């Protein structure tokens, strides 16, 4: 079974190896829509928009408080490179919420007895159990210079694979710490124990520029594949164990 819906401004694709009752899949998509309704900075009625319009912290939902706590924790773990404060001063936790939502959606799926599936939200993927050919899931890494191409394939089971980068070639990205131009790095893919961790660390490590891959190298249980503007990739020391 494979179904794609456009939610949170991106295609969300759910793939299961064996057929699954429609209402179970409906529930998972419904969950993503609920997340979007709460965290979209583009929706004026969302809780995050109301917070940015001045809703005091004691009126925030428990879940929002938990998200903010996780954002703070991630900022600490990444030496401030994970930053939810935008240049205009508004809060935008979407860099964490995306992976967190995929993770929660995967847990929802598992709780309904679905074992072998993948959830792909805009190129950030959680795979559970076996892939379609009764083996590991084969996930391609997109060529940042040509969206139609795949430049690496990793084989994974029960892992999160997240990519942070610039989809439009040549865009400038600035180091939130020092304002330094980071355009040298165009794409960073992280394989982690789950998509929540893979995604938040991919976002932060990408913001570190060239140092990002060293940050991932030092992180136990994570591997990374970084591509620079000249099309040269740098990988962490055990990354190739996933290339089969």
């Amino acid at each position, binding site marked *: 079974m494979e179904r794609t819906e456009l939610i949170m401004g991106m295609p969300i694709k759910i793939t299961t190896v064996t057929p699954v009752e429609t209402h179970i899949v409906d529930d998972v998509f419904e969950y993503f829509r609920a997340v979007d309704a709460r965290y979209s900075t583009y929706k004026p009625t969302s809780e995050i928009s109301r917070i940015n319009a001045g809703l005091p912290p004691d009126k925030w939902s428990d879940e929002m408080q938990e998200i903010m706590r996780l954002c703070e924790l991630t900022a600490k773990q990444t030496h401030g490179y994970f930053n939810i404060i935008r240049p205009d001063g508004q809060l935008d936790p979407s860099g964490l919420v995306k992976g967190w939502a995929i993770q929660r959606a995967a847990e929802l799926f598992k709780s309904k007895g679905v074992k072998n599936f993948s959830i792909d939200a805009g190129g950030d993927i959680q795979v559970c159990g076996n892939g379609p050919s009764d083996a590991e899931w084969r996930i391609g890494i997109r060529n940042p210079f040509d969206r139609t191409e795949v430049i690496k394939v990793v084989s994974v089971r029960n892992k999160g694979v997240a990519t942070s980068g610039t989809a439009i070639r040549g865009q400038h990205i600035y180091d939130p710490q020092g304002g330094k131009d980071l355009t040298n790095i165009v794409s960073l893919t992280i394989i982690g124990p789950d998509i929540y961790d893979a995604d938040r660390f991919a976002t932060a490590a990408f913001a570190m520029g060239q140092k990002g891959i060293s940050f991932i190298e030092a992180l136990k249980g994570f591997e990374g594949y970084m591509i620079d503007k000249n099309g040269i990739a*740098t990988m962490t020391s055990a990354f190739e164990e996933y290339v089969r």
Partner: protein
Amino acid sequence: MKKAIISIFVIVAFAIYSIHARNEQNESTVSAPSTSLQTGSSNSTTTSSSTTTTSTKGAYQDGTYTGSAADAYYGYIQVKITVSGGKLTDVAFLQYPNDQRESQEINSEAMPLLKQEAITAQSVQIDGVSGATDTSQAFIESLSSALNQAKA
């Protein structure tokens, strides 16, 4: 009284910071590498549109419109569109590019001894693709904001 003074100080300090942050954001704006209409100055990020309304046959009023700066995580995307004959005829990037024309600071920090390779296209069976989508989403946001302004 003391509280009030502190409050005012905090508000003023924040206002100054906001203006400063905004200026910084404007300074980081670079003009588009290609696509027409960009005449010289690259710092114009005003969201107001410069319209030259003439005949309109399509869904949009003729003129040029600047979209809002949309957040693409660690960068901003902002487009300027041109409508002529009621149709969208050009999209230019106000914030994003520079296409490596500026000298890039090379990070001299020593890399650990990690393996490197040149990327090459693969043609094998896969079950999914991981890639970044953030920027294209910001592009759509900025574009639709410009198009909304162009609506007759």
